[in-house]
């Protein structure tokens, strides 16, 4: 019972345990599983990991962003149109394309934030609308076939490096987010705003600046994830990014971030991204065929519920950990 209580209170410990159990189970089926797959699991975590860093900030300050999957699709398509060397691509220099995509991501995030902060529209509605609109835009931009043939400099970001480049970039993003959350005033204000908005205002915290920051960062990071996605797969289709927003929100919630804001740690989110990517990999590995997809969704759904329920008990216990001790 005590052990259970610790696991409920300490989300990271619980997630590590689940990762351990899953690793053990997969190794029992095939001893070579870990050696063959650990790097793939990390690499496959990259897009969700990068975006989750932004979405976590948004959720901690009391809002939500469910448009990131569609945004990634549109930005990937944009990069395709700019940099692909075959029609309809324009074959521009990759750096130019990267700059444009990052800027576009940031601008979309900023606009989302403005609608939420100044337009007083609930973020779930703003980002739901955005999700649908961007989905349409993505289909329209891509038209008939997929966009292929990207310059090798761009592909290097997703395929090169002795230590994979995209993994290094993701690690950098995680580190920077950790600094923001734990070592910078902005992070502290994000937590304060989500914890008690009325008091935050009285403490002189600018709601607008804080939330705009969180949304803009999310947009920027989605742009970064889109670039790495294209670099890795060398292919953009109408299905690029579909469902990613759900995966990201799942990870953030399973990672122990309170959906009501104010609470949650980055470490939990990182572990949750790895765990959920791992579940998908293991299910693939077990080769359950079409069945695997169903299982994957059932397991993820169960985990969200579990996360929310344990969170509830942790809180009722009055000892749920604050978001800042590491």
């Amino acid at each position: 019972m005590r052990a259970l209580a610790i696991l409920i209170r300490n989300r990271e410990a619980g997630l590590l345990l689940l990762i351990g159990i899953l690793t053990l189970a997969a190794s029992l089926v095939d001893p070579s599983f870990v050696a063959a797959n650990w790097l793939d699991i990390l690499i496959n975590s990259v897009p969700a990991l990068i975006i989750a860093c932004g979405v976590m900030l948004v959720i901690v300050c009391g809002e939500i962003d469910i448009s990131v999957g569609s945004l990634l699709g549109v930005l990937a398509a944009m990069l395709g149109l700019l940099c692909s060397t075959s029609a309809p691509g324009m074959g521009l220099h990759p750096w130019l394309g990267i700059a444009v995509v990052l800027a576009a991501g940031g601008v979309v995030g900023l606009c989302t934030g403005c609608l939420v902060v100044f337009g007083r529209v609930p973020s779930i509605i703003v980002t739901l609308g955005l999700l649908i609109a961007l989905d349409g835009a993505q289909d329209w931009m891509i038209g008939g076939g997929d966009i292929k043939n990207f310059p090798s400099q761009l592909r290097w970001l997703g395929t090169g490096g002795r230590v994979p480049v995209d993994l290094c970039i993701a690690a950098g993003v995680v580190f920077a987010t950790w600094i923001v959350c734990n070592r910078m005033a902005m992070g502290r204000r994000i937590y304060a705003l989500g914890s008690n908005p009325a008091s935050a205002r009285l403490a002189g915290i600018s709601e607008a600046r804080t939330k705009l920051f969180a949304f803009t960062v999310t947009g920027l990071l989605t742009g970064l994830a889109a670039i790495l996605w294209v670099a890795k797969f060398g292919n953009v289709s109408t299905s690029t990014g579909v469902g990613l927003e759900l995966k990201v929100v799942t990870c953030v919630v399973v990672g122990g971030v309170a959906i009501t804001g104010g609470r949650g740690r980055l470490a939990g989110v990182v572990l949750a991204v790895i765990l959920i990517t791992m579940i998908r990999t293991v299910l693939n590995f077990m080769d359950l065929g079409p069945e695997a997809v169903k299982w994957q969704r059932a397991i993820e759904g169960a985990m969200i519920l579990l996360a929310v329920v344990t969170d509830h008990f942790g809180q009722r216990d009055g000892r749920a950990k604050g978001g800042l001790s590491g």
Partner: protein
Amino acid sequence: MSDALLAIEDLSKAYGGVQALGKVSLGIRTGEVHALCGENGAGKSTLIKCLTGVVKPDAGTISVSGKLLETGDVRLAEAAGIAVIHQESTSFPDLDAVDNLFVGREVKKGLLLDRAAMEKQAVVALGRLGLQLEVGRPLRSFTVAHRQMVEMARALLRDCRLLIMDEPTASLSARETEILLDLVKGLRADGVSVLYVSHRLEEVFALADRVTVLRDGQLVATSAIDAIDHAGLIKQMVGREVDALTRHGSHEGSTQQPCLEVRGLGSSGLFEDISLTVHRGEILGLGGLVGAGRSEVARAIFGVDAYQHGAVLVGGRQLEGGSVRAAMKAGIALVPEDRQHEGLVLPMPISENLTMAALPELSRFGLIDSREESKLVSELVARLSVRTGDPDLPVESLSGGNQQKVVLGKWLANRPDLLILDEPTRGVDVGAKAEIHRLIRELAAQGTATLVISSDLPELLAISDRILVMEGGRIRGELDGTRATQEEVLRLALPAGEASRRAARGNTREVSAS
């Protein structure tokens, strides 16, 4: 005499058509505790909001040490040394003590936070208040009193020169209150000025150097505390002689027909062997200290919680335990202590809150007869003298006392047989209190049996026909409401042993005698 720290000149603020503040002028000296009194809705909160920059006044000036303060800017007010501790804790429960102290004004080394420096300063600031806390723990794990003290420390850290305290003791125990009052005295000795807002007049008299009274947005008077007494202060606040504590006198409506009979009610760990009878038209007071099990008994009677032993009978028929629906069907109504969360739907209009419990009578075939509804609403608003410009405004726009009137009005509308009131006037000012008492009596005169739980001794004595006193989950005695004294109630309410000790110290604050 010490020099003036803050000067308020002709401050005015109107919300819609209501003049919340009208040309109020007020001076606060360096190192004085200045009490601010007034009924709910007198303009105290608006004045505080103007001072802290949350609200921009329509006219008038505020100057600090002779320098004009630009109004309507939280940061400027803070920079001028004005800090506020609110009635409800404004701390951040998820952040730890250090972050709570520094949020919005972090200590930085370049771009990064200087955690070590902040921790050191936090320990010093809390030490100044005589507190040793684990500063790394999230604030939600602290007691309410400690949270409040962390807020005081936050104010001190910001070189606060005027600390505004808005009902700081509302949710503190007697001991915690004492500590807090001592802290305030310590601040005064350090030269900090305190604007102290409280309904607890004994605190005002114990603490303040001067007292200012507001009524209906107007300044009534500022007096030295020695120049005024309890009765005089109340008179200034209400604008008329009010004796909120007059005895009920005769048993106007009380009959011998039992309405509620409780027989041997018990719930393990909470209360046991509770037997009581409330007659039609009778007001039965249930006294005791906080934690004596009174609210738990009320919840069991109303079916919120189940019980293991005994029975509840309404009008001679046994009531199914643990069912609110059954209790409501039997004609029981409960007005909970926590009115904001359980008694009202705050964002909904006053009118809809008032008629919420009467909807079955107001509707035909499921449709609400809106003409009947508005008739009932205007009748109730007048009868309750709810102070509002428009009954279609949300309930949250009302002051605490007026909100409580709406909660009561809800039940006036559907006339319960048995009304259970849990702390009906907590946090309510003197004037509204008198009106609420009048309403309770009115209901009783109409034949409603009423069970009133109150920790406010004068109130208990004033409105009860009979008083039962609980302690440690048991009923310790019955008193005649028209003859009992505060001392008699206290003697029964205090745990044996503690009674004598407390009597020796003369400390009766736990059963608040406001």
